[in-house]
């Protein structure tokens, strides 16, 4: 008991770290990664849960970081900003104490040390939920070694802070200790750490359980194109309170739930499943909708459209509601979860069974299916099953059509919550997303006159993107984008079809017509034509030779460009590009390029079709994708040659 009391109240001492060495101060680059602007020499953390003087539990964290600064671009790493959480009551506040910092420099054959002045630690209110503490270390130069340490105390021991081994600069040594009284059991989840830890041990003594981890030489984590959430690939440890027993309890309370318990908890939670209910103000509308549409699918679509067009998303993604649905109904605006729960309520009100599906959106990171944790989820969709078909719905985007979800929901699967029948539900991407571009070029009487007609038609997400741009930019600015892209077309006329319709099932089409005086050249009785004069893939999208993470395109895509030339009567084709067909392994995608002549050579039709059939490709498929693009770029740059007869 005595030792526990001691631990509970005492400030834990920082271990003694090795002195800064002259040889480290003299270093000009990081040998293992010459591109690094700085590297972490030591990152140390210690989190411990303890009983406070009032008998409640708190958690404290002791941090120490030592960084070697190599380049000027790393100077901002000498400024540290902490955000400290406080709840609505402003009573349960995280605090920081014992902030210390130092800058080491090597000057005139000696080490100089500059201390952080406690006066230069700035504390202030940031907003309702956070205080901000910031400090910056003095006298930082190229070559400096900086270090800082501080203690954070938090009244939130049920959700300890993650420990990150990996940052966007390399780290030589990262070390974390976590200890907690044995009556509080934590679940500890490691991400991307397999085989990387040099030390990984837990031990129990004096009713305290202590775990320690050590990782050496952690490489920098760099951003790549087509990655949904870099945090999913970062080496880190996550903690979650799983079970506890405190004075006065006869048996431990288990917080670590299985999926059925997870489902039940969310279904009855008054800020999620519990919110779903009748909205009296909707009664009249419900009645009239029901009389208008007798078919269930038609009726469901009407309710969907009603919510979609009458309510505006406030941009927030929270798992739980913050307002009652009545309030949302009156305000006409709410978070994604709030609006989708409203949709569920209204669907039920017209007699259609609808249920919530909880997910973690793309930027929120993946869920860990082996460990049901509410905190991994951040969003709610609506589900209906009509005539045996599962449909997932979201009303946050006014340009979405029935059954299509915003791209941030493309996460593989979600948890459908139905009393006693909850289950995982795949989130299917639309069969097709992409563009169909049709170009027609016809020579007039003279070879110097070429009529152009180009249409762009969007499918799936591309259609939504078109609609969104049209609605946000306005017709004029959107047309200007096309005129700019097709700037060589003289006096281009841009027309829109299917955009004004409120029916999101109508396919939006953009048609551009004009004369094209520059897209080809006439020299010495020859005409040279570009195979695909516009919108071709003429620059390679995958420049990097290597790839670290899977390539996540969000959803499968397909782009088809058809280019039809009607050539002058007095010319004949002397050179045509050859057809080619390239496929990705296991038919994961393909590039089809074909060229055909019709009407005795008077008409040439070139077709390019790029299909990426998967949403996500593995790192091992990167080179194959890159090669496909080599072919695409080559073919899209080829020419057709005509000779005067």
């Amino acid at each position, binding site marked *: 008991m005595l030792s526990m009391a001691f631990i509970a109240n005492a400030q834990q001492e920082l271990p003694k770290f090795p002195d800064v060495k002259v040889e480290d101060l003299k270093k000009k680059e990081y040998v293992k990664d010459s591109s690094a602007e700085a590297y972490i020499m030591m990152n140390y953390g210690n989190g411990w849960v303890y009983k406070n003087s009032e008998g409640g539990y708190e958690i404290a964290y002791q941090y120490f970081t030592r960084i070697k600064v190599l380049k000027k671009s790393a100077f901002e790493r000498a400024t540290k900003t902490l955000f400290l959480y406080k709840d609505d009551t402003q009573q349960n506040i995280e605090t920081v104490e014992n902030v210390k910092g130092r800058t080491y420099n090597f000057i005139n054959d000696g080490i100089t040390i500059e201390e952080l002045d406690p006066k230069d630690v700035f504390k202030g209110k940031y907003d309702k939920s956070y205080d901000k503490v910031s400090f910056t270390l003095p006298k930082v130069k190229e070559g400096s070694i900086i270090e800082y340490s501080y203690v954070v105390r938090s009244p939130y021991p049920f959700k300890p802070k993650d420990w990150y081994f990996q940052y966007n600069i390399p780290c030589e040594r990262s070390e974390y200790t976590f200890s907690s009284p044995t009556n509080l059991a934590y679940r500890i989840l490691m991400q991307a750490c397999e085989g990387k830890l040099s030390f990984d041990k837990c031990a129990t003594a004096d009713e305290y359980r202590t775990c320690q981890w050590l990782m050496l030489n952690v490489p920098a984590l760099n951003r790549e194109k087509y990655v949904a959430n870099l945090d999913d690939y970062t080496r880190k440890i996550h903690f979650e309170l799983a079970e506890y027993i405190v004075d006065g309890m006869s048996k431990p309370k288990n917080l670590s739930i299985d999926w059925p318990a997870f489902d039940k908890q969310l279904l009855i939670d008054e800020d999620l499943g519990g919110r779903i209910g009748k909205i009296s103000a909707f009664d009249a509308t419900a009645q009239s909708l029901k009389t208008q549409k007798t078919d269930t699918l038609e009726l469901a679509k009407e309710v969907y459209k009603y919510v979609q067009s009458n309510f505006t998303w*406030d941009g927030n993604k929270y798992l739980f509601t913050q307002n009652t649905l009545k309030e949302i109904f009156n305000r*006409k*605006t709410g978070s994604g979860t709030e609006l989708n729960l409203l949709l569920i309520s209204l669907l039920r009100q017209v007699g259609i069974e609808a249920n919530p599906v909880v997910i973690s959106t793309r930027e929120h990171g993946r869920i860990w299916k082996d460990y049901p944790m509410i905190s991994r989820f951040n969003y709610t969709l609506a589900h209906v099953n009509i005539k045996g078909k599962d449909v997932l719905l979201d009303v946050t985007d006014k340009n979405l059509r029935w059954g299509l979800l915003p791209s941030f929901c493309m996460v593989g699967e979600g948890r459908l919550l139905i009393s006693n029948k909850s289950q995982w539900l795949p989130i299917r991407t639309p069969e097709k997303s992409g563009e169909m571009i049709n170009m027609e070029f016809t020579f007039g009487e003279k070879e110097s006159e070429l009529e152009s007609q180009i249409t762009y038609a969007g499918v799936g997400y591309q259609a939504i993107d078109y609609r969104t741009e049209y609605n946000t930019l306005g017709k004029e600015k959107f047309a200007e984008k096309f005129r700019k892209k097709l700037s060589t077309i003289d006096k281009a006329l841009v027309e829109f079809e299917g955009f004004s319709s409120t029916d999101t099932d109508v396919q939006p089409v953009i048609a551009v017509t004009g004369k094209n005086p520059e897209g080809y050249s006439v020299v010495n009785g020859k005409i040279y034509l570009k195979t695909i004069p516009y919108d071709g893939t003429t620059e390679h999208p995958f420049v990097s030779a290597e790839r670290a993470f899977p390539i996540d395109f969000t959803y499968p895509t397909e782009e088809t460009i058809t280019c039809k030339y009607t050539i002058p009567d007095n010319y004949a084709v002397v*050179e045509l590009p050859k057809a080619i067909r390239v496929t990705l392994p296991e038919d994961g995608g393909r590039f089809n390029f074909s060229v055909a002549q019709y009407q005795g050579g008077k008409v040439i039709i070139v077709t390019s079709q790029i299909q990426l059939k998967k949403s996500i490709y593995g790192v091992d498929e990167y080179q194959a994708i890159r090669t496909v693009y080599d072919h695409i770029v080559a073919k899209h740059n080829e020419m057709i040659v005509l000779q005067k007869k």
Partner: protein
Amino acid sequence: MLTTRLLKVFLLLCFVYPITAQTVVWNVQGIPEKLKEKAHAVIRTDENVLLVKNEGFLTRKKHTVITILDEEGLKYGHLYIDYNKLSKVTDLEGVLYDAAGNKLRKLKKEEINDIGNVSETNLFDDYRYKSVQFNYANFPFTVEYSYEVSDKRMAFYESWFPGDDTDDVSVQASSLQIEMPANMQLRYKEINGVASVEKSQNGANTVYKWKVSNLPIKAHEPYAPAWSERGPGVWTAPATFEMDGYKGDFSTWQKVGEFDNLLNKGRETLPPRVVNEIQTLVKGETTQEAKVKKVYEYLQQHTRYISIQLGIGGLQPFEASLVAEKGYGDCKALSFFTKAMLKTIGVESHYASIKAGEATADILTDFPAQQFNHVILCVPMPKDTIWLECTSQTNPFGYLSNFTANRHTLLATPSGGVLVKTPALSAKDNQVSRKVKMELGADGSAKAKIDAHFKGIFYDDMIGLIHENNQEKTTISLLKNFYLGNAQLSKIALQENRDKIPSVQVAFDADLKKLTSPSGSRLFVTPDIFFKEDGVPSSGSEPRTMDVELFNNISYNDEIEIQLPTYQAVEALPTDVSFTSKFGTFQVKYQLQGNKLLLTRKFTRNNGKYKANDFAELIDFYKKISKADRAQMVLKL
């Protein structure tokens, strides 16, 4: 339990009652048709009232009503009010109306966000703001806000440009009203044809009022001058004032400079350690310029930039001793610190306030006021004045980039403010010259040796690569810059030349698997491929109404020598092109010598202000260049 229920019923009644009682004022029908054209939102009224109580205190009152027409207009219904320790926001109220002008609800206290310490890079700041978002889904709807700010930020009155956002938002009515006590003078400048002031008396006070009404949407036009150069508005500023205990007078530039001197007074003492270091440092130097350079290098080695916005409206620098001690400061502190260091070696320099920005309108030289957002240092020399940008650890000595070049700056000299101009960068200063030697294979592959110099503003674009010294980023940047696709680059060498107009030299080899693809027996080559200009301005909506403003003088001087593969015939060789317009000159020449093709390209573009009807010519100028750059050579293999 019973009481809460009763309370709920009572609240509900309260809520319902005003809706029926509300007199319809902000009905959407009250908006003239032409104000709805192309608009996403309409400012129904925007009343700005400034009550100057005395030299040290004023009240700002705002009443604004905005009708949001569609989703894109939502952001115009959001309110932001900034304040700091010298100001206080009170009586913030908001009301939401439906299309018919019926009151839907009032703004609740908890809907007002109060946010501070916003930026992560702004370490020290007492800047805060209040923000409100009223969202509703049934368009159109209307929001109304009113609030007051009790304010001691007396160096800043109100500048009013009612049509500033008219590419999205039309304005039904907007006004500025300033009430001055009898003993105080209001200084103002009406610009771009705003209707003249209406003056009236309120007791002993004089009331100045400006208003506009019915400003329709003015579509965005590329290369248009800033609104303050073309739209109606009023600049206002105090004559005499007092802020945080400092008395100032802005009636002349000389006096604006005196205020800077007052704020800086007594803050330039340096610790003896630094004085000694500086003395030692310059000991061996014989010329003034060399000494100044040493001091500047000392600054760059010992300090770094941190943004600071504290007190006195962010106008007063840290004490020089503090910068010496901490090794950091903002533009004011670092410039002032450098001035203090130069003083210890007997070199006089001037704290120079400037309006920084890459493509920004100059200050109004005939209206003395705090129009600046940055500080640099001016060191007068017998021959050439030296200008020092003190916030950069890497900037070459004496170089001002287009962030501060070619504009007016206010020097705080011992006898007060003096307005002078910073030097301009010529087309020769801002130059790119590229030399390429390339071997072209019959299969369309190519090997190229590239040697390029980026000077002046182009130096600014490239120097980051040297500082970052990151092989991968450099490669990606070069591939983009020279349109090299996914070529393999090797032997990359970057070198900085720290002349007064600095430059970066870039040399590398590029191995292109596919510069071009053979089309059967032919090879199509665009000789200008690495230099091409693809920045044809878009025409915008016609007819053009606004003047055209181009900011930088720039020039390109390029050369490529292509070793061609064995060929049967050159079926097509691009023709030489040369033309001149008021915007500049362009010239490209081709010479075929056996199986070598030599291309030379010279392009100069002038800065300046041009008339609206010159715009078509500017587009044409760029189109001709773009066309010439895309010209292809056809080789029959």
